[in-house]
Every structure is written in C-alpha cells, then in structure tokens.
C-alpha cells in the first residue's frame, strides 16, 4: 500500500507544485489542505504517514496546527515537516518547539524534498 502525504498550504501554486513533484518522483498518495484548521481535520480523517505543512497561513498557522496535531493520539508520532520562507535560527527553533520533525525552506528544491521524504517514508 502506498504511503500517504498530507500537503498543507494556502497557496494553490505551492500545492500544485508539491503534488506534481511527488507524483512524478514517488509512489506516495497525496491529500491536501488549505490552512492549519483544515489540516487538522484532514489529518484525523486521512491518517497520513507524513505531513508537509506551510507555516504562514490564514485561520491557523503551521506552528499552531503542529502543536494541536501532537495532542491527537493518532498523530502524535506522524512526521511533520514545516515549509518556511525563513531559514533563520530562531524561526527554525520555533518550528521544533511546536513539535515538527524537520523543516524545508521555500522555494522548495525538488531533490531536497524527495530525499527528505524518502528518509522518513522510504522509497
């Protein structure tokens, strides 16, 4: 059975690009959400094997969504990778404080993304 990845971003451009990269380069199944709140409900229903989530989003940002996902028993161990525009140390630290496993910076490099996801999910 293929692994499932939940992609979360309020930008349809980013979602389209991420989905296309994963469809071309992996066997993972993709599901999507538009913001942090949407992501939590989708994650509870879909039980993804990994969450790739933007930080800056309307309604609920990625840090808060990450914290709340960690309170759900079914999502406590799910790898969460945050997508950020900033690689600065304090921003990265805030991501890890919220419970994420890793982060990747925008604009996403396809090789970096696929390598990172393979390291969590296998090829």
């Amino acid at each position, binding site marked *: 059975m293929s692994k499932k990845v939940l992609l979360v971003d309020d930008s349809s*451009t980013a979602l*389209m690009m991420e989905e296309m990269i994963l469809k*071309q380069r992996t066997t993972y199944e993709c599901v999507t959400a538009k913001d942090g709140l949407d992501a939590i409900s989708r994650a509870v229903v879909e039980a993804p094997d990994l969450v790739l989530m933007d930080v800056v989003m309307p309604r609920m940002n990625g840090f808060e969504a990450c914290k709340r996902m960690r309170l759900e028993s079914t999502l406590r161990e799910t790898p969460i990778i945050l997508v950020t525009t900033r690689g600065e140390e304090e921003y990265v630290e805030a991501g890890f404080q919220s419970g994420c496993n890793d982060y990747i910076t925008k*604009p996403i490099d*396809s*090789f970096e993304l696929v390598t990172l996801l393979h390291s969590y999910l296998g090829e």
Partner: protein
Amino acid sequence: MSNISNAPGEFERNSSNEDSGSQAKVYAARMRLQNAIDQADALDAIREIAANLIGTEEVAVFKVDKKRSELWLYWSFGVDPNKHSVLEVSREPKLKSVLSGKSVYRLRLSNENLLSTDDPVTALVPILVDGSASAVIVLFRLFPHKTGIEAVDREICDVLSHCAGRAIEPYRAR
C-alpha cells in the same frame, strides 16, 4: 565497494529529478496564472509565484504610461509603495531593454543594481500584452538563503511575462 561506479547513475537520477522539479514549477506557474479568476487573483498569483517558486516576498508591478517615458506603480507586496511610486525610463537604462520585451536579471556575483533604488532589484520582467510590454514586474530582494536567479527562475519569469496580462488588463480573456 567503489563509490565511483555509482556516480553516473546517481548523476542521472539527480539531473532527472531536477528536470521534473523545474517542470513542476513552470507548470504550476502557468496553470496558476491561466486559472486566475479575476484581476485581483492574477495579482495574487504573481505574489504566490514570486514567493513559492522564485523566492522573494518583495514584488511590484509598474504600468507603462502612454508615452513610454515613465512607469507608475500599479500594485506591490512587501515593499514601501512611497519609495517606488514612479520610474523614469530616461534615468533607468535597464528599463529600455525590458520595454523591448526582454527580462533583465541581476547577475549572481554582481553588485550592480538594476534600478536606481536602495532596495536590491533581482529581476525586471515585462508583462507582454499583444506582443508589447504594457507593464513591468519588479522582483526585489531574494530570501537570504537563496543565492541568485537560477535557470528555472528564468523559465518562470518567461511564464510571468507571457501569462500575467490579466493582472493589468482586467477584461483580458484568459
């Protein structure tokens, strides 16, 4: 086991991966612009493409005046609009090339700015409507971790140049 024997295969895998990543970015840019539902959405598409695919959250669109001697700020995101309200073509030599339809990029190691402003300008991209430059997209400072414009970014800028007409001409058909 020798690492050298694996090198060609690894290179092919990497370059193939980069190709598909580039294709994905160019495709996403084109689809986002072509599917923009109205002018505001087309301007938002420019912002999204700049931030998510190229790597800057400082972008502005300048419209060309009828005499083609000045460009007026039409829309911006992440920059102070008061600092960039008008660009005079006579004072900005790079704009002549842009108004002829060619994008201009800051070279990776160059300190030369593309416009006479304190804010670093990374690219000047004409928006072509019926083959003529009707406006110019100015991409300012890149994210700190992004070292410069790459080949794929130039392809994305080509898409912006040819597909962003709706951002400045509200009634333009998709």
